[in-house]
């Protein structure tokens, strides 16, 4: 395990280095340079020159990269070109919204997806199987931004059950402790606030959960089916174990490792989907922040956001890999 871990950490460092290069290079390709962006098109050549010198843009690219990397490691990405606040601060302020949305969606996907997949596998070929697998096919084909709009139309506009968007109703006084609205509501000890926070979260989370839910259901079904036909399961049945015990102890347990991995790997999908979901439901999360920053060419925020998300993503995938290797010795030998 030690060797495996060392090898993976080595790969992780290379990938993180590559990620920093990609983000740096991408921001260097930006149409129009930063000095022009800051001073506007009518700036004189001499003032542009002075600012370029101040920002270090007249230095060789490699020197600029080194400064970027040093800054990034110290958490300094410069200030937002829109409101002059630290870029990383804006990213960190928006992150809890995305985190809460993503976790809630993952929870919905797992709590419904795993049992549904197990049920479908155990009733393979029956109408129950069809009733579960057919919607999953629709689920993976669904554009989340459209589904979100339709859900708003139905549940908020037509039925009036849920709010139209946002984190909280305008004017609601919510203590900001963790930045996760439901957790903060719980910490405030006011039940009405918890209910309001949940009502605002449920529709975006359910929308975002659609594709992961469909995938988790399909993978669970597939893994259960392949485990059901393994020799040790046949043996367990042959020696007269009750069916429930065979399923729990021998089939589900064996199928669980790949299922857990797939659940861990949904993060990329969720973070991507969050960008669109946040836009539809007017949630001030990281995805929305990034899109607004791109449209406003606020490059320090784009840079900070991109690097932050990539690091979180790489770290989670790394942990999933390590957990997988710890659970399944075969992985370490690859």
């Amino acid at each position, binding site marked *: 395990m030690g060797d495996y871990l060392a090898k993976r950490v080595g790969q992780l460092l290379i990938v993180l280095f590559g990620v920093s290069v*990609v983000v740096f290079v991408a921001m260097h390709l930006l149409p129009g340079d930063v000095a022009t962006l800051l001073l506007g098109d009518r700036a004189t050549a001499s003032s542009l020159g002075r600012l370029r010198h101040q920002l270090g843009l007249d230095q060789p690219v490699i020197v600029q990269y080194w400064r970027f990397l040093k800054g990034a490691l110290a958490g300094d990405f410069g200030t937002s070109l829109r409101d002059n606040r630290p870029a990383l601060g804006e990213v960190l302020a928006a992150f809890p919204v995305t985190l809460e949305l993503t976790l809630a969606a993952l929870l919905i996907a797992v709590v419904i997806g795993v049992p549904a997949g197990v049920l479908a596998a155990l009733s393979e070929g029956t109408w129950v199987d069809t009733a579960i697998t057919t919607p999953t096919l629709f689920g993976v084909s*669904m554009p989340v931004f459209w589904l979100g*709009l339709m859900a708003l139309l139905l549940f908020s506009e037509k039925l009036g059950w849920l709010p139209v968007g946002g984190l909280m109703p305008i004017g609601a006084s919510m203590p900001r402790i963790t930045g996760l609205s439901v957790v903060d509501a719980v910490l405030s000890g006011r039940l009405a606030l918890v209910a309001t926070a949940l009502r605002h979260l449920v529709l975006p989370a359910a929308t975002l959960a659609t594709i992961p839910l469909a995938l988790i259901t399909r993978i669970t079904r597939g893994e259960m089916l392949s485990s059901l036909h393994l020799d040790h399961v046949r043996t367990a049945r042959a020696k007269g174990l009750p069916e429930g015990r065979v399923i729990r102890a021998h089939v589900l347990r064996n199928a669980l490792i790949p299922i857990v991995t797939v659940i861990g790997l949904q993060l990329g999908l969720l*973070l991507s989907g969050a960008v669109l979901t946040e836009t539809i439901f007017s949630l001030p999360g990281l995805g929305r922040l990034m899109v607004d920053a791109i449209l406003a060419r606020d490059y320090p925020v784009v840079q900070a956001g991109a690097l932050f998300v990539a690091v979180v993503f790489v770290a989670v995938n790394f942990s999933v890999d390590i957990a997988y290797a710890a659970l399944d010795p075969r992985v370490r030998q690859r």
Partner: protein
Amino acid sequence: MSATVTPIAAGAERLGRALAQPAARLGLAIVFLFLFLCAFAPLVAPHDPYAQDLMSALSPPSLAHLLGTDQYGRDVASRVLYGARYALLAIVIGDGLALAVGTTMGLAAGYLGGAADAVLMRIVDVLLAFPYLLLALIIVAALGPSLLHSMIAIGIVYTPQYARLVRGQVLSVRQTDFVRAARALGASRARIVLRHVAPNSLSPVIIMATLQAGAVVVETAGLSFLGLGAQPPSPDWGALLADGQNFFLTAWWIATFPGLAIFLVVLGFNLLGDALRREFDPRAR
């Protein structure tokens, strides 16, 4: 997807079996309908997709306008029909770019091995280190928002998948007797890759291209929806949805039909791709 070697004759037989499945036929029918509408949009569309008629702005579906009109009185049905062409363009450019670059990278990495393999696969790892839409956002940010740039961005995002798949294929084909025989007969590296390795890696690549086609349509529409892809007044489905979002409480039809079109096209490609995968990839059964 597993790396299996399929003789070409058996491949044709399997293709027949895959397309005999009802789900695959439905998928194929949707894909053909989509291609037909792309080709004949000017003949099928009842109105000019750009023609404004402010007098009949925001009218609900009726006989004159089957899917209603938008805020400028443009015919939604005609715009959705013309939008199919943008979706097809996204598939050709986005999926095509990913396929061409990814396959080349995979062939090179798998066949050359050593340092070339290590470098190419680290590039793939770095691209996979970003959540896919985020990578697309960064690329669009770098190139500037436009339809073409959004398609290129999506192409780059999907490149690593092809590279990994093809590399795996090459590694397994390299070990087969016929490649060893070709090498023993003195065939050049290029000849072995192009004549023996590439054709035998074809079927998994086609399956992936089919499944990715749907994904590419959703992603480029997503970028247009965010304002980073197609710009108004082009009738790209994502842009139509973004337009409709502003009116969806009063004029639900503007956003509903482009979304339905995206869903159907993606469903078509997924049904087809799933059927092919079930037949060609033994582990997917």
